[in-house]
């Protein structure tokens, strides 16, 4: 019988993460015996909601999974469905989709860095506190976010839940003059993004390193967004259609969210911007590539706190890439490839701002969705976050419960989890026995 004291620490709701979740930690003596990331947002049943509906509704329905990264859901859905239907899109449609994704990376990374994550590096409770000390920097961050939104509006019709994305292409492609008129603003945004990157490189990062398996897309010719093979730092190299052979979503009793693990050993893995740069650094655009070399980081980097460095580099990349794509764009005709509904199956993976996202669909011969599987990035990172906390906690248990909770939240925020997306997510409860 143990005579060690018990200790309970609770964080009722994790803050500055997207969605609602809790963390429960059990400590017996000096040993952490359980770490449970509990997502208590109710399940949203999007996969079941899609069943029986016309396949062309899929991009608009799946976009509602998230207000920050709807494009990730739309892109992954349309590509998977196009595979099922045997549709081959034109290079112009492909270009526009990549440009749309640039808008989402700029907007999502901009929000996460300036409103959710950077306050941690200055001991600020929130972005409002940060803004009192760093008004110029926060205003700059808001400008970046706004440019991301504008790009989304130009291509998608509106910034939140774009409405122009269709299976086969776009309902309305942008006109070249519309994009050219925005080019100078993107150049100003690029300058802002470079300044943000230099600011972030100077932050003080906790020393924390683990032997992660990092997973991301890899494309031979370009930094991955809409397509590529799924690769890892442990030599995984598969097509998206092989995802179920190497990954599996599992239900855990403490969470409404599924947790995705690597097979065969059901191990945790890491997705997101840090994984992307570790696996694709050579493919970054010129300025982003140079910044990666100047970031005081030894690549590959296995410190999750430095994810914000990767995020800052990716914002620079997204601006550079958007400008390049606009320069290359000569209009899009046809804007949408016609198709005949057929029974089929398609699977695809793209890179959402917070990591790899995977969709699989089965269609019926009359153009309905027979089956849908959606694996968002936060489901994939949940198990990894629990493992990280298990390693972190022993080193901070001497601190007060409040301090422990803050340290845990800070680590979790490094992952930019989107709980709403994963509902598949935070309160912290630590029980010390």
């Amino acid at each position, binding site marked *: 019988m143990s005579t060690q004291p018990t200790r309970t620490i609770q964080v009722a709701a994790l803050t500055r993460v997207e969605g609602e979740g809790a963390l429960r930690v059990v400590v017996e003596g000096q040993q952490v015996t359980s770490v449970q990331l509990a997502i208590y947002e109710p399940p949203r049943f999007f996969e079941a909601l899609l069943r029986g509906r016309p396949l062309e509704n899929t991009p608009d329905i799946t976009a509602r999974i998230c207000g920050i990264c709807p494009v990730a859901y739309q892109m992954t859905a349309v590509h998977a469905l196009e595979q099922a239907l045997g549709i081959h899109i034109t290079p112009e449609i492909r270009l526009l989709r990549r440009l749309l994704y640039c808008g989402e990376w700029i907007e999502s990374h901009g*929000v996460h860095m300036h409103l959710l994550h950077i306050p941690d590096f200055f001991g600020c409770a929130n*972005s*409002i506190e940060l*803004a*009192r000390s760093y*008004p110029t920097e*926060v205003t700059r961050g*808001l400008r970046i976010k706004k440019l991301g939104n504008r790009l989304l509006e130009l291509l998608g019709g509106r910034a*939140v839940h774009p409405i122009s994305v269709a299976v086969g292409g776009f309902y309305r492609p942008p006109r070249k003059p519309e994009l050219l008129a925005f080019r100078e603003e993107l150049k100003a945004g690029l300058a802002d993004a470079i300044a943000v990157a230099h600011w972030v490189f100077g932050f003080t990062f906790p020393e924390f390193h683990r032997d992660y398996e990092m997973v991301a897309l890899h494309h031979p010719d370009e930094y991955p967004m809409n397509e590529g093979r799924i690769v890892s730092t442990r030599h995984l190299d598969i097509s998206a259609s092989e995802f179920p052979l190497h990954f599996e979503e599992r239900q855990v009793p403490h969470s409404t969210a599924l947790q995705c693990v690597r097979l065969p050993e059901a191990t945790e893995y890491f997705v997101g911007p840090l994984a992307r740069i570790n696996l694709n650094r050579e493919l970054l655009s010129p300025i982003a590539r140079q910044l990666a070399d100047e970031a005081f980081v030894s690549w590959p980097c296995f410190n999750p706190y430095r994810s914000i460095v990767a995020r800052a580099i990716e914002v620079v990349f997204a601006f550079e890439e958007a400008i390049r794509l606009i320069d290359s764009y000569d209009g899009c005709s046809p804007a949408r490839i016609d198709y005949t509904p057929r029974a089929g199956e398609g699977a695809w993976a793209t890179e959402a701002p917070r990591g790899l996202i995977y969709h699989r669909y089965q269609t019926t011969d009359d153009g309905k969705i027979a089956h849908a599987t959606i694996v968002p990035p936060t489901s994939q990172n949940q198990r990894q976050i629990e493992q990280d906390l298990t390693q972190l906690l022993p080193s901070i248990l001497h601190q007060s419960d409040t301090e422990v909770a803050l340290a845990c939240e800070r680590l979790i925020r490094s992952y930019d989890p989107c709980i709403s997306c994963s509902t598949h997510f935070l309160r912290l409860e630590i029980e010390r026995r």
Partner: protein
Amino acid sequence: MNPNPARSMPAGALQETSSGHHAVAVIGIGSAFDDDQAGWLVIDRLAQLGMHECDLRKASVPHDIIDWLSPSTVVHLVDACQDPQPTVRRFQIAIATATGSLEAIAEPQDSLPSNWPFTQVRSNSTHQFSLLDTLGLAAALGQLPLNLVLWTIAIQDSPRTDMLHPATAARIDLCVSRIFKELRHA
């Protein structure tokens, strides 16, 4: 046809007018769906009433408004609200001298319940960056308008996403009437 369609796209910060008067804006926050339309419908109605002296704008999320706020402006915000009482409320938003934090002062006739959750105004917005957070950020950045008024319209659950609840429609009429009277008589 709407003779003066309200702008729903970002259009830069509000400016002082050439006559030197402070620019007045009414900004509806919401969407095109069910009772969340309330803020946008107020803007449409004010446009139909010919309130050309005001800058009428629509915002989808509270975030949208931060670029539009500046210290030289007068801004009326209109937002749908889950209110325990089926009513329209007017709040004067200001920084409390004692605490330095934002406070919302209700009109006396609004008989605000003691437990009325001002902090819940649009706290269910995308990724928890609420209207209160947005106004707090604007205050921290020195962008809080000279005069900031928040109108809240109590909404109800609607059976269809494209339909407005009849009771909410009546409250929108009341809100339009109060804003019109206040601004025209200012």
